[in-house]
């Protein structure tokens, strides 16, 4: 009886119970050798649209830089933008992605994207590991009965799904895990700020929505596409969490 009560409680999970951890959009392309000449120009151009751009690592084929709006990675064959926040409709995130990808595509003369992916990660905290694991098990996403297998946990702690055809693909992972946040303070500063560590048990939902076939630059308008895909991700994630509703 208690089991069923707990199960119905967990089944009430919706995507709105989860807090966004990060949203990443990545585009891949054939090796863009202009990166060796134009990385600086790309950064200069982006300074007009993003606040306080700081280079974190730089090597000829890969540059990572941050701004108040998010993290950017520019590589020989791919570039991506990650934001820790994404508002309800995804408009601002989509606009920022458009600015970044339009700049990169123009400067690196990219005409075909081999893959475009939007990855969304969200978390819901639980009071302990057991509760997080039960929440994942109670979603009943597979026909496997909850049972101890391989001399390990009583039920699966992670569920992975992938849908793919020749054009579009999606990947969903739901995992019970304890996330460890650790702040390592330099030795000489520990009198002022002590080392901090916090462990948070919870459930992570990780969704990757991507194209399988190459996309020509003239087919893709980043802002509108990302807004739409974000809505689809939220809707599908909600359907999965509610027990497979479409």
């Amino acid at each position, binding site marked *: 009886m208690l089991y069923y009560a707990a199960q119905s409680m967990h089944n009430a999970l919706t995507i709105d119970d989860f807090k966004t951890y990060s949203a990443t959009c990545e585009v891949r392309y054939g090796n863009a050798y202009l990166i060796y000449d134009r990385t600086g120009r790309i950064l200069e151009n982006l300074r007009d649209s993003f606040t306080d751009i700081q280079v974190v690592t730089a090597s000829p084929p890969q540059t990572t830089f941050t701004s108040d709006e998010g993290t950017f990675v520019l590589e020989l064959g791919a570039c991506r933008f*990650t934001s820790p926040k994404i508002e309800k409709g995804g408009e601002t995130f989509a606009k920022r992605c458009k600015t970044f990808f339009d700049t990169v595509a123009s400067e690196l003369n990219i005409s075909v994207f081999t893959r475009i992916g939007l990855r969304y990660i969200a978390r819901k905290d639980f009071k302990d590991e057991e509760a997080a694991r039960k929440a994942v098990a109670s979603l009943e996403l597979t026909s496997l009965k909850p049972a101890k297998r391989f001399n390990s946990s009583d039920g699966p702690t992670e569920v992975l799904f992938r849908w793919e055809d020749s054009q579009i693909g999606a990947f969903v992972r739901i995992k019970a895990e304890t996330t460890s946040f650790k702040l390592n303070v330099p030795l000489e500063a520990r009198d002022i700020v002590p080392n901090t560590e916090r462990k948070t048990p919870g459930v992570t939902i990780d969704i990757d929505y991507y194209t399988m076939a190459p996309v020509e630059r003239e087919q893709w308008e980043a802002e509108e*596409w990302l807004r739409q895909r974000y809505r689809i991700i939220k809707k599908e994630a909600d359907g999965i969490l509610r027990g497979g509703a479409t």
Partner: protein
Amino acid sequence: MSDTKITVLPISPNNAPASQDETRLPAGKTAESSLSSGSAVVGLTQGSLAIKHSIDIDRLWETAHGESSNVVRALELLKQTADYLSEARKNENPIDADRFVQRAQLGLPKLFALRSIGDGFGLLINSLYYASLNLRGTPMSHAQIDVVWRTLRELRTHPVISVEQAVQHVEELERCGLEPDPAGLGELLEDFESAEDA
């Protein structure tokens, strides 16, 4: 249950099965192998065969039922307009063909309202709109119908067309005898040029 260190990110691409292809995260420098499949496809998509292997535009912009956006609306309208012209092309009877052309022309003002999709899109739709107005009721020839139909089909597969590409299509419209500029613009330009020469 595993402890995921978040000094990088709680979910690293390495946690996923090695064969799977994922959108990498900022710390995901290790997933280089996932690029290999993409690189293989690039070879097929470059050059004249590029369009053949590209994603289906309707799949790229597929939306949930009841949802729409400018690009999705434009794709629907472009399909409808191109279909009318397709009917016109098939029709031997000039009166019937013109009837379909007129139906196609009705779609142009609606497409005009969606020109924020891109500069190239806006340029081509404007040009088609003025080319149709400048006919002043004269039926399009079969050659003109062909060119307009091809232009609309191209715009449907590449709605975010660049201005350079769009200009090439406008030139094609001009070559088949259509006038894609607003009436009077030519005279204005001539006046401007002669004023500059003087």
